[in-house]
């Protein structure tokens, strides 16, 4: 009688994690950074129409790295989650924490139960209003969730970018200009080439905006901010 083929669970998980990490490592990085008036999202993205950064709700934004089709699917599900909650209850009841939990549950379940894990890493950030602090959650392919402070990095060279940013960061929340130039130079250092403003995708969650606080910065604005 043939013995059933046995692979230890450790081995399975390790293989899956390796597979997912490999997929993510191919992509470019994105950064979320707290600045004086909100949160800045910067992505190294040469495409002007395939977004890596997007609006989820009034105070909540999303950034994805890895396989586009997979994080796009997560982004859409997140918008559905937020809009449904906002419609069922009220706009102020939509929170980044609940969304990040949903993502974590979903990614964790897929990682352990499906043959192929999702090759993605995502960020859920929420700008704090009325004296509340900002919230930034980094969620990995296996559903592990990390609550970040000051800045959060996802994508291919996230560790390297993180090291560069850590060196530069000071205790105070920087101005928008400083935050953007820090992010861009960190991305450039790790990518080893100059990033033109056209190759950047930049958006902000502005604390003092009324209603929906997410705003994409057009190329002209990015150029202006970087020239200061």
């Amino acid at each position, binding site marked *: 009688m043939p013995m059933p083929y046995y692979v230890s669970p450790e081995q399975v998980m390790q293989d899956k994690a390796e597979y997912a990490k490999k997929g993510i490592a191919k992509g470019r990085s994105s950064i979320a950074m707290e600045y004086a008036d909100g949160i800045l999202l910067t992505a190294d993205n040469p495409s002007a129409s395939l977004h890596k950064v*997007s*609006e*989820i709700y009034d105070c909540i934004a999303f950034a994805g790295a890895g396989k586009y089709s997979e994080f796009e699917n*997560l982004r*859409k*599900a997140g918008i*559905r989650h937020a*809009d*449904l909650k906002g419609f069922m209850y009220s706009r102020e009841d939509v929170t980044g924490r609940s969304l990040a939990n949903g993502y974590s549950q979903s990614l964790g379940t897929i990682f352990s139960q499906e043959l192929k894990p999702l090759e993605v890493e995502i960020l859920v950030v929420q700008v704090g209003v009325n004296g509340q602090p900002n919230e930034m959650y980094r969620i990995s392919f296996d559903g592990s969730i990390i609550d970040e402070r000051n800045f959060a990095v996802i994508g291919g060279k996230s560790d390297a970018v993180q090291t560069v940013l850590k060196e530069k960061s000071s205790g105070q929340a920087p101005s928008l200009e400083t935050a953007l130039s820090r992010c861009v130079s960190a991305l450039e250092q790790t990518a080893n080439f100059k990033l033109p403003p056209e190759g950047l995708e930049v958006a902000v969650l502005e604390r003092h905006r009324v209603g929906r606080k997410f705003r994409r910065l057009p190329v002209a604005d990015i150029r202006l901010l970087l020239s200061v």
Partner: protein
Amino acid sequence: MKLPYLPNHDESSFFDFVSTHHPGLTPGGHGVVPADRWAQPESARSGGPMAVPHATTVLAIKYQQGVVIAGDRRATEGFQIADRRIEKVFKIDEFSAMAIAGAAGPCIEMARLFQTELEHYEKLEGMQLSCEGKANKLGQMVKANLPMVFHGLVVMPLYVGYDLKRAEGRIFKYDLAGGRYEESDYHAIGSGGKDARNTMREYFQKNLSEPDALKLALTALYNAADDDVGTGGPDLVRGIYPTAKFVTAQGIADVADDRIRSVYDSMIAVRRSRET
């Protein structure tokens, strides 16, 4: 692939999403009691209007820069006044507004659903629907409400939008079956709609200025309130006035209460002088 713990749906419409996965949340309420088992209140069985608050006259007029949309503040429940301060004109997104007549609860719910619908589409697709696309979507929502009409819960919207491609304001009216018709100059709906239309027919001109368009809208509402019990005129004692919004290329702007009040003050002064 399907994502566990998160809502899955294939299309970009929020309305389709909630009707499929959370039918109880839509105004059409696919989970409603069949008509014969519906415990109808006395008034409804005797053929009178059902005892829920009804919102009444709303109107829209095109002018030089776009469209002005306005509505009175009264909600009635049979022969009683249910609410003196109800809002019937809703901002839907940056370039469109909708006003409602019919059963107040489902009307407000539909406005809220429509707001979410447009925002949802914009976020998922990364761009706004066209003005025509928004008007069509609203038509589908009115159509979905048809089963409720047989229970007496009529929702009748008047939709105005600024069409950025055509660079003009547009007005759309609907019928109960979701039919969508574009109006070229002005329109009014609700119990006092006919009276308001009569006034607008008399004084409407193409390319009105902003103050003239506002004055015409407020006069039409005043005359409707004069002839229709369901429509509320300006309440001078409590300081409640109709509400209005301008929909232009610059977006939506609320007309300040003071401005509406001053229009009414001068209008009432003229009318009073005629009586003496």
